[in-house]
């Protein structure tokens, strides 16, 4: 990184408050592929000059996978511990790169005492574009490239966010193609509901392969994602299909960072 990523603890020590907290999430913190997306989100925040901070080692799993698996105890333990940290830092606004963290903090934390304005990074990017703070210039050109966007279930159906990621892509002057199953009818990548952490049940095909088959029908050069779990599932599918050379799976944050030469 060419700049230092500020932590809440440091800002607090300096008597400052950030405009927005960037909630990284476990995948964004530990998964090598997702770490790239995390750094790109930081680069975007840094580039537009938003005063932000991360929790760093003070961050902990939101409890999403535990809750979806049915372990409400573990979920609420995680939730309350996180809420204590967030409230102690007087956090008002949160941006996150993970739709699962987004959904959990936005919808499930308020009932346990943690109420914040929560946005997903694609919404942040959309806002920055409409405010004119972010364009698609100075970097890689996506002009005319065929891009298909895969809706994460926890962003789309779960929270009705379909337009922000598409708006973030429209600025590229690329050729956006929709898969047959898209938006509210989008097909899951197969990772939600704690499936990410287990082998799939017996079937005749893996869900991510079904989804990648569908994505490939659009002949894309880029499959755009907005979720670290989807990223893993779609990348695995592309690998399995031996299409890594022709088709890139990129998160909207990565595409935005590349287009702006960050």
């Amino acid at each position, binding site marked *: 990184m060419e700049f230092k990523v500020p932590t809440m603890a440091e800002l607090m020590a300096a008597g400052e408050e950030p405009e927005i907290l960037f909630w990284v999430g476990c995948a964004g913190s530990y998964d090598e592929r997702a770490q790239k997306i995390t750094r790109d989100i930081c680069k975007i925040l840094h580039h537009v000059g938003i005063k932000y901070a991360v929790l760093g080692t003070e961050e902990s799993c939101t409890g999403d996978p535990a809750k979806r698996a049915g372990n*409400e105890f573990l979920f609420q333990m995680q939730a309350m511990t996180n809420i204590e940290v967030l409230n102690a830092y007087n956090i008002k606004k949160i941006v996150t790169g993970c739709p699962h963290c987004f959904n959990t903090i936005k919808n499930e934390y308020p009932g346990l005492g943690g109420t914040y304005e929560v946005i997903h990074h694609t919404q942040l990017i959309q806002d920055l574009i409409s405010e004119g703070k972010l364009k698609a210039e100075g970097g890689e050109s996506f002009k005319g490239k065929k891009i298909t966007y895969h809706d994460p279930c926890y962003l789309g159906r779960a929270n009705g966010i379909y337009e922000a990621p598409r708006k973030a892509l429209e600025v590229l002057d690329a050729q956006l193609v929709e898969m047959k199953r898209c938006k509210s009818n989008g097909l899951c990548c197969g990772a939600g509901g704690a499936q990410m952490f287990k082998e799939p049940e017996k*079937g005749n095909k893996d869900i991510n392969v079904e989804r990648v088959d569908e994505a490939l029908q659009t002949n894309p050069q880029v499959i755009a994602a907005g979720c670290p779990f989807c990223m893993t599932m779609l990348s695995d599918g592309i690998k399995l299909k031996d299409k890594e050379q022709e088709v890139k799976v990129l998160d909207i944050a990565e595409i935005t960072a590349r287009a702006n030469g960050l």
Partner: protein
Amino acid sequence: MVAQILFLVLTLAAIALFTVNLRKIIRNIRLGKAVNRNDQPAKRLITMLRVAFGQSKMVVRPIPAFLHFFVYIGFVIINIEVLEIMIDGIFGTHRIFNGLGGLYNFLIASFEILAFTVWVSCAIFLIRRNILKLKRFSGVEMKSWPKSDANYILITEILLMTAFLLMNAADAKLQSIGAGHYVQAGAFPVSQYLINLLPSTESALVIIERSCWWFHIIGILAFLNYLPYSKHFHIIFAFPNTYFSNLEPKGEFTNMASVTNEVKAMLDPSFVPAESEPGKFGAKDVTDLTWVNLMNAYTCTECGRCTSVCPANITGKLLSPRKIMMDTRDRITEVGQNIDKHGAEHQDGKSLLDDYISREEIWACTSCNACTEACPVNIDPLQIIVELRRFAVMEESQAPASINAMMGNIENNQAPWKYSPADRFNWAEGS
């Protein structure tokens, strides 16, 4: 006079029997746990008008939406005709509304056109189910009764409409030959084509007209009493079911208050939880679910839109959201029958989990909400799946090994993977 008494007895008996069965079903629904769905009445009303009355979620599939719309409108409008039949039946009159003059002719004409569109739509539905064999209508849960049920409904509707049109044709012919009692009333844009098929003697025509009239009304009364045993029940339950449906974002799962108390007590020893009755966590049987879950089950029309979009089902896994709903309904029906036979305290040693729904099914769900999005009457199979998982995990500690490992990691490392919490910020060092 005999006919009037017979009519009245039949009608009252049918209504009484239906009331008894409906009350049993409402009692069964009330066996579910409490959940507050009385907030935001305006939004609920709008949801009901849009989704149930306006069928907004049907339009995703235009062909069945179009055909279903005719059957639905036909059903609603032809009920005006049933009102006339009721009055005629009780008072021995004939076409009591004919005093409406031009409006009456318009009504009868529109009933006829609708009866015809219902007839055609039901015929197409039968073809789709039995000849084209659409995939959506098949599946492990669509054997025997559910399969026959769908066909019985369609055949009954075709028979009722046929009787209605034949009755009108005979009536029109009787009117044209000036038979007594058969007043000049109505317009017959459809049944006029049936007139030539009928005999021309008055006595034969009266027999046809009367038997079709009786068949039509007895058919309707019988159909009413068929509803509680059939998926066709949706014509009633679609309305309350959409009214009481979940208005929160689909991704939001309930926070269990019983758990909140315990967690607060663990984190803060000085916390004194409010007194609450000890219950089990999650659901093992239908009576552990909420009344909304149970109403969902009775509302399900087995259309299979949920299963056809379920990623697990699409890829050959055992899970079928439709089966989840049908199993829930079959089980609550069984529980209700046990109460009727052996009293409220009877236990049959069976439960929804394992006896009806297998572990393999509940662990195949990705919680993607495709099923809840697809359901035309806002049924929520996902909530039932989650409640069953909650029981399996929190009461039995029976999660798949890999899920246990993931939860162990969260407990020990604050992440679902086995990484050190101290390394959580290492990403900032990379480039």
